């Protein structure tokens, strides 16, 4: 299987504050890759580099075989930021249609993708409502649908399940697993919920701009000789203090 994302000795600082320090990562195609760590650890900055919104001070970022930033590549990357980033005056459907028309999609494909994405997040019945009338969870789901709209090969989700109720969280995760298995998509997820981390194929623990440790969940638990990821995280974080 090919390499989807290659991050090579990347550092980034804003003024005097170092946000990322010598980060090296490799993500294989067709896997769910979890970045876990507390807020302010640098997860979002790292993720933004993958989308080309930030440029590394030093080091290289390669996505799907090409150096980032790269405008053309954005057709193949679905990005969902921490904020919902929706037009609240418009209906759910109008939001989806708008974002769909920013990508290269035929008319028929556009309609299919809108139907598919809204079905996936259980919003098919609510598409006619204005987003202003949506609940927090509905907005989050619509935002996820927008990230999926162009059928991207790489899906980058920054804290996708914040504010979503447990049953929907399970169904979203089931869908992410299905996307990975059936469609071979590569998915990058940031989270600070440990049971979500356990469902990833590969994990990187981020704190203070560094990768503390990485590996499959099982490897990590074996390495730190515990049976839950929370203790791995605490142990890995404690050693750097």
């Amino acid at each position, binding site marked *: 299987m090919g390499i989807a994302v290659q991050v090579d000795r990347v550092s980034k600082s804003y003024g005097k504050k170092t946000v990322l320090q010598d980060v090296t990562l490799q993500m294989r195609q067709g896997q769910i890759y979890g970045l876990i760590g507390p807020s302010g650890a640098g997860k979002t900055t790292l993720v933004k580099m993958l989308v080309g919104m930030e440029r590394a001070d030093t080091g290289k970022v390669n996505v799907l075989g090409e150096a980032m930033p790269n405008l053309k590549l954005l057709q193949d990357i679905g990005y969902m930021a921490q904020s919902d980033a929706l*037009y609240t005056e418009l209906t759910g459907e109008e939001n989806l249609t708008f974002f769909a028309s920013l990508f290269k999609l035929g008319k028929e494909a556009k309609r299919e993708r809108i139907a598919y994405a809204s079905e996936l997040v259980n919003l098919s019945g609510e598409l006619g409502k204005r987003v202003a009338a949506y609940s927090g969870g509905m907005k989050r789901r619509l935002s996820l649908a927008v990230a999926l709209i162009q059928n991207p090969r790489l899906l980058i989700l920054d804290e996708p399940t914040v504010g979503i109720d447990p049953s929907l969280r399970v169904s979203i995760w089931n869908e992410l697993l299905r996307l990975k298995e059936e469609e071979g998509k590569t998915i990058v997820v940031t989270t600070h919920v440990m049971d979500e981390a356990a469902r990833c194929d590969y994990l990187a623990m981020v704190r203070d701009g560094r990768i503390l440790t990485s590996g499959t969940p099982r490897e990590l638990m074996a390495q730190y000789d515990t049976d839950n990821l929370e203790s791995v995280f605490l142990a890995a974080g404690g050693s750097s203090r």
Partner: protein
Amino acid sequence: MRTRALIARICRQMIRDKRTLALLLAAPLLVLTLMYYILNGGEADNPRIGIVQEDAALAGMLQQAGIDPMLVSEASAATIERHKLDGVLTFEDGRPALLLENADPAQAKALRMKISQIAAFQTLDGLGLPVSASPGIETSYVYGGEESSFFDVLSPILVGFFVFFFVFLISGIGLLRERTTGTLERLMSTPIRRGEVLTGYLAGYGIFAVVQTIIVVMYAVNVLDIPLAGSIWNVLLINLLVALVALSLGILLSTFASSEFQMVQFIPVVVIPQVFFAGILPLDGMANWLQILGKIMPLYYAGDALTGVMYRGEGIGDIVPNLLFLVAFACLFIELNIRALKKYRK
């Protein structure tokens, strides 16, 4: 294609936001109408002057000059206050002395001029010299006419100012909201080009700016009857350029604001100073450095072009330099905008 989707989305959002739409389209008309009635208000009452001695000839002359005389006992502030006078005229040993209320310095100055004229006649008369009634001077005007009021000179500038102000505010806040809600960031994570984004915004908000401009100009000319010596097409052209400048400036400044409140804070810094240099106050009397300052303000050129066309009846040839300056401002702001968008995509 992407630009068209962007334009359609902005239009849809604007039409849904009825209140903003109303502000954009109706507020300029409201303010313009108000200004029209305030500045064109009926003649003020005659000024009232107290005289201490009974003097029929003097009283007659005062009345002829449009001043109401009134017999009072003494020249003092108390007298002026009690009788609601504008001043008291006394003669001591034949020398006139005037005590003025001076509540409105401009009015007081005009009153002093009139009265010193009358007093001079009075003195001449007292010396037994022949006095002719004030000679009528035949006056003609290069621009406007005898009926021209301050509003006639002001209104072309006001029209331009309203177009500038409302377009600036609405495009600035519109884009700011996109920045704070993260939709601009999301937009920039799609394959859209920065140029396409900016074209979309300029065109999307531009449509409403054009509609607003046409409504304001038509209302000013047809309903308020603002004199229009030149061509209405030139007026529209100038205002469309003003709208373009305001649009690109509003979008640019929204980069430096992190909330709607901060966007409003730009009004005293960016919008109000421009009013001073738009031609409402005479620029000739200003200090040199102020005049130079005025020349970096878009409304200076807009004001000059608008009074040129509407009041002085200038043709397109006379306003070309002003138009070029406006185009240059718009180009500058658009270029800066494209650079500012780099913040979202490196």
